[in-house]
């Protein structure tokens, strides 16, 4: 049955998330302004507080399915702050790749580690087939050389899923991913990047110089280069089918925060915000605000749709891109619009709105830019291959 109402259990979990978010928010400004510091793994206030994830156990079939629920939880958390968490969860994007492409032995070995994922290089981002980092087999070891940037969770992870080519002439087919543990000689964390927003977030740059790792660290274990298609590559790209909705949800949480703040300010200033009337009777400022609200809701619905499909075990490649493209643009418009509505008050660093405006900007860039998402959607609409539309 089509239904968008939350069950009591859903509501209880999201209420707990909201409570935590309000606490985390108190630290938001500090870590934004002190970007060389990391928020603690666990806030003091976490003591004696039940984890939200524990509450996810013992839910029944009538509750919202887990993947879909996790979108609401993510949005609820970033409503508090992008980076500050009551407790920092284990695992990062590399763990998703490990689950999608790792052999059982590899999952066993690194499942408990936090693994970042290093794809982007100074000279290649959206086209990972141009990866320049090389992996050369030497006896029973791979020798890695190259540079990686924009590695999320890059400083605090235990290891990395690294994309490197074993044969540059093979293009995409030659790209493999490798697990490299921190502390391996030749693997240096060069710096924490300085950014427009999400400043407290752990974004690192890596350098690999004759870094030797065991042969069995090749993710998935397949050393051959597929002749035509890029099966292995596709496997890793599948990782994105849930991470794209996730980063969209992360963005929408901040957009919701911006809207809630703006609504409070408007109401405090005496504006009445009502629904159901015709558009002509609304003051321009309310008209603008409600448009942003509708945009936010529309984006959230596309996110829930993509996550729900995945929960049903259905293909969601296009929908993941739909929600990512929609939300990436929407969160910018929403935060820009909220500042517009509040005027000079909106740009004051006394409030968090200007921070949300900076923080959401990454949504349309990481996990595939809006342009890449549109490319994917268009290819699926048109039945085109990568070659036919690029």
């Amino acid at each position, binding site marked *: 049955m089509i239904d*968008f109402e939350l069950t009591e259990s859903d509501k209880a979990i999201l209420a707990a998330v909201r409570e935590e978010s309000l606490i985390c928010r108190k630290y938001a400004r500090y870590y934004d302004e002190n970007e060389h510091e990391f928020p603690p793994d666990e806030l003091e206030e976490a003591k004696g507080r039940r984890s939200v994830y524990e509450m996810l156990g013992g839910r029944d079939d009538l509750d919202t*399915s887990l993947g879909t629920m996790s979108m609401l939880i993510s949005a609820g958390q970033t409503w508090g702050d992008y980076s500050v968490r009551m407790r920092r969860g284990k695992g990062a994007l590399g763990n998703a790749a490990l689950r999608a492409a790792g052999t059982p032995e590899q999952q066993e070995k690194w499942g408990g580690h936090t693994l970042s994922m290093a794809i982007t290089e100074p000279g290649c981002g959206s086209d990972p087939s141009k990866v320049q980092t090389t992996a050369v087999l030497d006896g029973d070891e791979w020798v890695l050389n190259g540079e990686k940037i924009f590695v999320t969770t890059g400083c605090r992870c235990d290891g990395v899923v690294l994309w490197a080519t074993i044969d540059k002439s093979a293009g995409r087919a030659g790209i493999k991913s490798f697990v490299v543990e921190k502390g391996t000689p030749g693997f240096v964390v060069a710096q924490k990047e300085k950014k427009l927003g999400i400043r407290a977030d752990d974004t690192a740059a890596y350098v690999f110089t004759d870094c030797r790792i065991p042969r069995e660290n090749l993710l998935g274990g397949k050393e051959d280069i597929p002749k035509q298609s890029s099966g292995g590559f596709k496997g890793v790209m599948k990782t994105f089918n849930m991470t794209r909705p996730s980063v969209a949800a992360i963005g929408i949480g901040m957009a919701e925060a911006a809207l809630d703040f703006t609504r409070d300010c408007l109401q405090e200033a005496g504006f009445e915000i009502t629904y159901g009337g015709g558009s002509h009777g609304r003051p321009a400022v309310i008209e603008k605000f*409600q448009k942003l609200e*509708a945009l936010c809701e529309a984006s959230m*619905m*596309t996110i*829930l749709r993509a996550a*729900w499909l995945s929960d049903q075990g259905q293909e969601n490649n296009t929908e993941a891109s739909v929600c990512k493209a929609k939300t990436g643009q929407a969160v910018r418009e929403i935060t820009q619009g909220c500042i517009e509505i509040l005027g000079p008050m909106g740009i004051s660093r006394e409030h968090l709105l200007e921070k949300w405006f900076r923080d959401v900007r990454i949504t349309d860039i990481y996990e595939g830019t809006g342009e890449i998402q549109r490319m994917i959607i268009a290819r699926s*609409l048109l039945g085109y291959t990568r070659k036919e539309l690029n």
Partner: protein
Amino acid sequence: MISFKLEEEQEIVREALHGFAEEVVRPLARECDESEKISEEFLAQSWELGLVSTQIPTEYGGAGETRSPITNAIILEELAWGDAALAVAAVAPAAFAYAIADQGTEAQKQTYLPLLCGEQYAAAVLAVCEPTVSFDATIPRTVAEPKGDEFVISGVKCFVPMGDRASHFLVFARNNGGLDAFIVERGAEGLSISDGEKNLGMRGLPTATLELERVVVPGVNRLGGESGCDVQRLLDGSRAALAAVMVGLSRAVLEYAVPYAKDRHAFDQAIAQKQGIAFKLADMRIETDASRWLVWKAASQLEQGIPAARSAQFAREYAAEKSMWIADQGVQVLGGHGFIREHPVELWYRSARTLGVLEGTISV
């Protein structure tokens, strides 16, 4: 629980209606638009599908299926994929029927529902729109003055669908500062019905203008009787329905533009292979999806009997903006051909603009 799962029955209905839209509705769209006449044969055929009577309780002559705004939203999307004007013509009486079934008194149900459950197309419709600058359905100029046991109604209503033949009108009017809806018979004294204005789009749909000059209706004709009705709820239902039609139209444009862009070559390449076109198509898909989920959300709240004013407003306004944008982009993708009446895209462009200003008319 958040779920996008269609019931098996809804899947079947969707498939059946899509077939009908493809085989019957779409081929008639151009002809009805050009002649500015509805096809009587189409009305008869659509009537046979039971679009109006299926969800009316059996004791009033219907098939007694559960009232489902979601199923209706799905039906409307498919019908409107065929053509928006024909879709509205087919289901306009359902809006009257649902208003009575959901909010009417027992006597009103017994009197009016059987009229819409007969063998042949019959119309009783909503009269909501008014020909005033910056019309707002929640602040109509039409006024119902209580006078003893009666109401005296004065005002003008336009874009009344199937107004050329409707036996009854549900007229939205102000009543002592509040809002109400009144059942007005076609033959009522003081009611003059003229052919509607000739409009930009939706030309195949017969519309009428009603002039009510001190039309007296008995108190029992007030929807819901003495306690009146929830006009906001009626508007919410119509907004969700209009939004569903807009989604169907948007999808029609997208599905027409895609093969065209693949066939049409320029500079040794299909135009679809150029990012300027491909990204437009992607955005058309994104906004069609986003609009649809807003419609489903509003419809699901209506189905569950929870407040839906916010979600219906969002669905209606978002889908209106996006369907206009999508139709506009559709014209652009087709270029000169988008401007030529041999292709349906210019018709959709006019329909989208027209739908965007309507209120009432149909309901889920």
